[in-house]
């Protein structure tokens, strides 16, 4: 297969997998349609980290804030103001983008380390705020969200909701893929490889990183809104630090530099969480955290390009062995 047709083949496999998931997940043990929905939503959220973390090498530990902004905007607008869910989702996207844009305007004047610290602090500050504000329902959260509707039909059950999310994931994947292959993608890569050389080549790295940050915020927000309308309930745990870390794990394990990293990572991480839950001795939270920590560290040390980079790594090894 030539390199030229590899993306097309990739999409054929991807669509085939998305189409067969409902059939497979209802027939094999411990996978259910809800796990499938969760994986797809997490994949959408993690996808935004490919340009930001994978290419521009900026580590955000605050994505749960945008996930939460999406979920809570949807919840507040639909429950308190009876806005149509789609408008709620759109408003979440706009708000998340605006917040990321303004935050990015100042954060990216500094170097990489500070982004991680600033996003971490920002995420926790937003989480603490949501926990206190009356409009977000304090620690009780907001319940009774309406389901999303398409062509007049409410998506109240898992199957139609899965199809919707799978469609969104496909669209998001294509969009991010086009971004990666555009001049912006090469510039992001350059800025990630050597920020100083990129700047010396006239690239405005702060603006570029900020753009990637906004993209990541938008996708996290979409995932958050989707989750809120599926679960019909939001609470401050949505903004928990572990959710931010989980997206980071997904993209690291799956592969940060490729759009396929997000779905691969989401599948692996959700599967892993299901496997260790109740199977390892001790409490569930402990087992889950430990497992996350182990796969994160191991994949960074042994498989720096993640699962998506595995075929290329194997090809290289095979060539080297000959």
């Amino acid at each position, binding site marked *: 297969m030539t390199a030229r047709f590899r993306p097309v083949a990739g999409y054929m496999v991807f669509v085939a997998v998305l189409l067969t998931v409902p059939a497979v997940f209802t027939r094999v043990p411990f996978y259910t349609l809800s796990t499938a929905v969760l994986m797809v939503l997490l994949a959408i959220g993690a996808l935004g980290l490919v340009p930001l973390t994978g290419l521009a090498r900026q580590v955000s530990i605050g994505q749960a804030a945008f996930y939460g902004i999406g979920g809570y905007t949807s919840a507040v607008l639909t429950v308190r103001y009876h806005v149509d869910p789609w408008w709620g989702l759109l408003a979440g996207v706009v708000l998340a983008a605006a917040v990321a844009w303004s935050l990015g305007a100042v954060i990216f004047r500094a170097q990489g380390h500070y982004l991680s610290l600033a996003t971490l602090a920002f995420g926790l500050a937003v989480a603490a705020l949501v926990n206190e504000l009356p409009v977000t329902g304090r620690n009780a959260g907001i319940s009774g969200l309406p389901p999303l509707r398409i062509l007049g039909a409410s998506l109240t059950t898992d199957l139609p909701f899965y199809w919707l999310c799978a469609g969104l994931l496909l669209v998001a994947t294509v969009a991010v893929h086009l971004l990666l292959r555009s*001049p912006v993608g*090469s*510039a992001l*890569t*350059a800025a*990630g*490889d*050597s920020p*100083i*050389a*990129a*700047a*010396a*080549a*006239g*690239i*405005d*790295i*702060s603006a570029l990183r900020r753009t990637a940050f906004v993209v990541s915020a938008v996708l996290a927000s979409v995932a958050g809104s989707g989750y809120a309308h599926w679960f019909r309930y939001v609470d401050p745990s949505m903004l928990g630090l572990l959710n931010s870390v989980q997206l980071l794990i997904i993209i690291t394990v799956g592969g940060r*530099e490729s759009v396929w990293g997000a779905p691969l990572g989401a599948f692996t991480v959700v599967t892993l969480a299901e496997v260790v839950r109740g199977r390892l001795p001790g409490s569930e939270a402990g087992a889950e955290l430990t497992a996350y920590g182990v796969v994160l560290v191991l994949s960074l040390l042994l498989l720096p390009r993640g699962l998506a980079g595995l075929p290329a790594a194997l090809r290289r090894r095979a060539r080297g062995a000959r």
Partner: protein
Amino acid sequence: MSPAVFEVQDLTVRFGGVTALDGLSLRHDSGGVVGLIGANGAGKTTFVNVLSGVVRPARGRAFLDGRDLTGLAAHKIARAGLTRTFQNLRLFGSLTVLDHLLVPYGARNHGRQRALALLAEVGLAGTESRRPAELAYGEQRRLELARALALDPRIVLLDEPLAGLAGSESDELLSLFGRLRDGGTTLLLIEHDVPSVLRISDRVLVLDRGRLLADGTPAEVASDPEVRQAYLGDDDVRD
């Protein structure tokens, strides 16, 4: 008086206790090749870093064509027509050779043909789909140079562009520098190989512990007793 091609006034840079540039002032009016020599640690790279916006000076100002560059972001300086290469190579490890020449600001407008021509000019024809790790060291150096030229700069700061190159390779590059100068680009050439610098430069600056030790035509500098003693003589012993 028309503005200088570049000018610095009272430029001072400190790193902790080290004063890398110590009140450096100079102006250059006429283009051509300006050689910059000096012992290890004399402040040559720091000078490039300040002009290109990577390091903020503690004091002093820098101008390009009369425009104040001090405090300007590095990418704005590059867009204003001043580009540079790096002494320790800083290539984009994940990008192809061709992409290195398309990524710089505005370079894409010149198109692929122009990028390929530039590659041929520096002797990298045929390598366009490789990545830096697949290039020989000398080729990597030339890619640094080509990337700096891709923005069509008014002035290029070359930080030891010949280091580690074989004699024939460095002769080719020296003649490329000559062609660039004839095309109107000003070059600031930092180089440890003093004879090469003296041969190609129109003006030579000698930096010593952050100060200007000598400044003049190659002939003047080569005969300056202080330079001979402090730098050229030293150089024989050291290398």
